[in-house]
């Protein structure tokens, strides 16, 4: 079973990607954005919990009206150099007030976690083989911050209100 960090705890993933569970038997499915958009009407009728996985070039505005139906959005990172996901997350949390699970997935690593948590990510699906105990320590990298942000799971002390 896939392990991941959710709200600062190591847990077993309760979600399945669509290709892992083609029948939707698990009742919590993550669809690629393109497929979701093509089959949207059908999925809006579906009784299970629904998530989508988006890539770095996908626009958040296109999802705005569907957010109440989505319980999870997984944002794909291609590596350390990929930084669009931080803005996508900020827009989802702060502009569209998305309250569901926001998952960072792909080639992510421990040293991004503090920034990601500040942008509103609450779940971290690391590449296989990552030491999740080590990754958990990243939430404590900084106890202070200068910026206001969509902090989830971290509460750095700030000077201003």
């Amino acid at each position: 079973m896939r392990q991941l960090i959710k709200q600062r705890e190591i847990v077993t993933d309760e979600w399945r990607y669509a290709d892992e569970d083609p029948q939707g038997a698990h009742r919590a499915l993550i669809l690629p954005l393109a497929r979701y958009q093509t089959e949207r009407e059908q999925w809006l009728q579906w009784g299970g919990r629904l998530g989508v996985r988006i890539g770095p070039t996908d626009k958040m505005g296109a999802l705005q009206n569907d957010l109440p139906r989505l319980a999870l959005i997984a944002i794909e990172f291609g590596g350390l150099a990929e930084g669009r996901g931080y803005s996508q997350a900020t827009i989802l949390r702060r502009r569209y007030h998305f309250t569901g699970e926001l998952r960072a997935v792909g080639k992510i690593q421990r040293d991004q976690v503090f920034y990601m948590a500040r942008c509103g990510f609450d779940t971290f699906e690391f590449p296989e083989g990552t030491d999740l105990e080590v990754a958990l320590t990243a939430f404590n990298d900084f106890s202070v911050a200068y910026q206001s942000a969509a902090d989830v799971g971290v509460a750095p002390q700030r000077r201003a209100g």
Partner: protein
Amino acid sequence: MYRYDPIDQRLVDERVAQFRDQTRRFLAGKLSEDDFRSLRLRNGLYIQRHAPMLRISVPYGLLATRQVRMFARIAREYDKGFGHFTTRQNLQYNWPKLEQVPDILALLASVQMHAIQTSGNCVRNVTADHFAGVAVDEVEDPRPWCEIIRQWATLHPEFSYLPRKFKIAVTGSPQDRAASKFHDIGLHLLRNEAGELGFEVMVGGGLGRTPIVGHVIREFLPPRDLFAYLEAILRVYNLEGRRDNIHKARIKILVKAVGPAKFRELVDAEWEASKEYAPVFDEAEFARIKSFFQPPAYETLGDEDVIAGRDNAFRTWYQRNTRRHKVAGYRAVFLSLKSPKRPPGDITAEQMDAVADLADKYSFGLLRSTHDQNLLFADVRQRDLYPLWQALQALDLATPNIGTLTDMIACPGLDLCSLANAGTYDVVDQINKRFEDLDYLYDLGEIQLKMSGCMNACGHHHIGHIGILGVDKSGEEWYQITLGGRPHGKDAALGTVIGPSVAKADVAEAIDRILNVYVAHREDGELFVDTVDRIGIAPFKARVYAPTHQAA
């Protein structure tokens, strides 16, 4: 000068601990070379030709003497006894040991310094006019704004993994002295007709392999909107900037691709959409920061005739290396880091210690690094100029060449840098030897010569009155010459390449020929760069490439 409170201090201390852990994981083989690279770069640590290079942040060029003494100590204990000031007003060490870098950063943190975001694809050190606070023509001191921008940009959760590096300069005088049009964002403090303070915002300037002059996208931005607007620019860039090609990833390429007018629309739309949660300008916090930049306790003095009865050498130095101050009885003093005995911007540990003592004695314990790779004592009593000059002479920091041809900017080039195509220090030596005659340099007047060892343009060659770019031609070092660049303000311009590159041995000769053309064509009191503009590059080109016997 800004002083850290417990929050600032905790942040740099925790950064040191974080980097110590990252270094430990790398050395233990638990972090790949690639992953560590991205992390060490965020702390200014490069791996160069011979050794690592560590770049320390000097926010807007302002230094306290205890910080300079720490630079000296680190240079002695962890490097080869010297440091190098850069065009971003920072200091670089060229020989630290990778495993000792966490200890160096801990020492820096003990004097409220760090190397955060001196490299990597994030917001870099915010630079300013080195005459900030003392310039006669100043509208507003840019340094409190630089400091509040520094804090906002430090470990920014959303903008720490941008497509490419991001440089901001702030100026507070109508006369730009920070090359602000060649920055990703340039901010000009000004007052509107109602007398209110605001910013003119320029975006998309830069050098490198695609040099571009920045475009104004907002004529007057009230301070209350500063961070909301900066975040709108950065969010548009973060989402829309190219990430597929490192050479096309700077914001200037995006601005050029969509056009400045369209870019402005994108920023305005993003600004509007994010109003609900964009950072609110905190007046009280800004007042707190500004309180650290009050003028020092100037004495009530009159201007003096400080050169009357003094020796010629002092007069010359006074004329060349000191500048007017807004307070009567004071002068701003350059410490020339352009002695012919050392590469531009280099300073030894012994000089640093002595400079710190002198700044304590003569300039309120503060000094500045300039983007021209010199140092500045901003607040020297005119009556102290003579003893200060004597002391600086003894330290080889009084070469009276500020603003002249030999006040060259040069990157470290092939001697140290792994990106370089050609050496710069040999060429600096060659030019220093050829143009030893100070009277000739004074006759030539103001000339800014800027040299880079590769097209990344750390030496700003595009915006030198004379620019020199080192290129590699089948393994040999050659040099391309540009004329007519201007770094600052409304006249900001890129130089024009005069023709094929010249061989290494011929660079000083080519410069000499160029100067001869200027001397032959100049009108009364006309600056070199103005003559270039007036007569064009053709006469210079004809002379530089003429056979030797015709070129005299």
